[in-house]
């Protein structure tokens, strides 16, 4: 018995030793983690791992990681979990929307390094048996409260000249809300959800239609990658930012290339609710990618972004999504809790 334990310990030790020597033979690069969840412009990173542009495991490198001399660790999680993880400093970077980025920024100085896409119809209010927004007043609208969905809902009401207090936005997980409308249970007649639930619901139940969606507010809901200021300041932090950006644009190039576009699109859709190429084409229409550095720079350096963030900030403070308003800055010099900084996109653009 005792001998067995000794043998076991010896084997483990030998294994550990073997592992160590194997590691030190290669130069150990700094590891930075990116938390991401399934969403068209974020699944890009998962697909980049599949296509061997990067290797998402810590300790393994893909060509992009070797190019910038940094080790990217991908962590795929549920969106809410990504937010909590980033907020509690257990990852360096996160895929997040501009609305949800405000809260973590209060506790952790953050830098938006890369806008990935904007919602142009990917968030929609879907109704059954309701003809117009006046009739909507009599129905509860189910969606995730204090989220992008509620923002899109309220902004659309404003645009239609409706009073928010006349409507009843009710909390429900978007997946559960979509299912309830599709299966005609519990009197759910209006939902406010995002893709893939929008497409799924419209297809499953033929008598549903979109009452309004985020195509009225293009550029307001921005999906992006945010890195903690502290991580950027660490050795290799800036290389990490550039590697992330480079990965994103390289995969976009694969998407744009007629030879590889179809397969890449299907790969993006594979985990995103098993959508085929045709559906994915619609999805990427509704989730418009900032597919090259110029489009991203136009957003980050344009004047529109400041107005949009002011709208977002007003919404989040008036709806008690944030306990206080974080300071927001633009450009590399700004000192703010949340900073939009085009520095690394420019660096990547100039190098490639």
């Amino acid at each position: 018995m005792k001998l067995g334990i000794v043998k076991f310990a010896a084997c483990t030790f030998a294994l550990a030793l073997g592992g160590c020597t194997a590691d030190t033979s290669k130069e150990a690069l700094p590891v930075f983690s990116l938390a991401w969840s399934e969403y068209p412009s974020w699944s890009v990173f998962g697909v980049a791992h599949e296509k061997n542009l990067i290797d998402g495991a810590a300790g393994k490198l893909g060509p992009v990681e070797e190019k910038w001399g940094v080790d990217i660790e991908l962590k795929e999680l549920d969106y809410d979990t990504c937010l909590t993880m980033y907020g509690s400093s257990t990852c360096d970077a996160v895929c997040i929307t501009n609305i949800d980025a405000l809260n973590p920024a209060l506790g952790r100085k953050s830098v938006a390094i890369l806008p990935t896409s904007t919602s142009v119809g990917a968030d929609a209010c879907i109704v059954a048996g309701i003809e117009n927004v006046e009739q909507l007043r009599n129905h509860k609208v189910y969606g995730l409260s204090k989220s992008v969905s509620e923002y899109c809902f309220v902004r659309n009401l404003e645009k239609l000249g409706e009073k928010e207090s006349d409507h009843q936005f009710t909390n429900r997980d978007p997946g559960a809300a979509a299912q309830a409308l599709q299966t005609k249970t519990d009197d759910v007649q209006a939902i406010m959800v995002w893709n893939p639930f929008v497409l799924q619901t419209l297809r499953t139940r033929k008598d549903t239609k979109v009452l309004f969606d985020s195509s009225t507010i293009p550029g307001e809901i921005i999906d992006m990658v945010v890195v903690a200021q502290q991580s950027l300041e660490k050795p290799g932090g800036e290389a990490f930012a550039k590697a992330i950006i480079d990965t994103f644009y390289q995969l976009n190039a694969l998407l744009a290339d007629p030879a590889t576009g179809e397969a890449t699109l299907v790969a993006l859709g594979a985990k995103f609710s098993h959508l085929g190429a045709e559906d994915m084409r619609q999805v990427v229409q509704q989730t418009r990618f900032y597919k090259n550095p110029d489009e991203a720079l136009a957003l980050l350096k344009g004047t529109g972004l400041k107005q949009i963030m002011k709208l977002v900030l007003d919404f989040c403070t008036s709806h008690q999504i944030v306990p206080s308003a974080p300071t927001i800055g633009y450009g590399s010099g700004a000192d703010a809790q949340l900073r939009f900084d085009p520095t690394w996109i420019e660096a990547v653009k100039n190098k490639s």
Partner: protein
Amino acid sequence: MIRKPIPQSWRVGLGVASFLLLIGAYSYLSHRQLEENPDDRSIPSWSRLWSDGVVRVFTPNEHTGEVWIWQDFQATFRERLLAGMLVGVGVSLLVGLLMGCYDPLEAFFLPPLAFLAKIPPVAMLAVFFVLVGSGFEMYVTMIAFGIVPVLAQSIYHAAKDDVPDELLHKAYTLGASQMESIYNVIYKQTLPRIIDGVRLQVGPAMVYLIAAEWIAADVGFGYHLRLQSRLLDMSVVYVYLIVLGAVGFFLDFVLTRLRLWLCPWYGH
């Protein structure tokens, strides 16, 4: 030495010490986190926990006069958990006792119960949404469905194995009918085991309920925990967790007392 008794003062002292250790560990973690980043909200200091958590949770809303935690408490415990447990315990009691008494019912009910007990109800959330929607009925179904297979089986085992045949024969000899035997002999003899079974199912029932509220609710503990953790309002999350623990502890205490009161002969 194994099972060597310790004095009562030691017992109390060690219990208090383990709690102090928990509090100390939290203080240390919070201190370390705040040292690194004073704005961190994931492990708040005790004073923040009080001002951002406790105070906000128990203060009535300025506009509506509603108190968060009271609303959530009403929805989660007074309505959903209570109804779910009542239905679940009622069904288990009926099915379990009958299975313990009549072999055909045992043969009929045991295989599906044994099988269903192995499916985690949380994994079946989507099925519940489809079958019973996502309103009040869903929570009740979820809890009942979760606890019945286990509880009914434990009641059945108690009714079948813990009541000696002699007792039943004695009752028959004294002229008891079948119903009288079931109520006066089997039910009363197994009552302490039933109460203990119910007590042990309160925990799982809360797991199922919180999971369901996590997905589909606009009030309740699960709803608020999810919302606040997404908004990184960890002060509120910790307060809610402490209250959850306290309520569970209280229910456990009440059921233990109930058993001691109803079945003093059963012992501790």
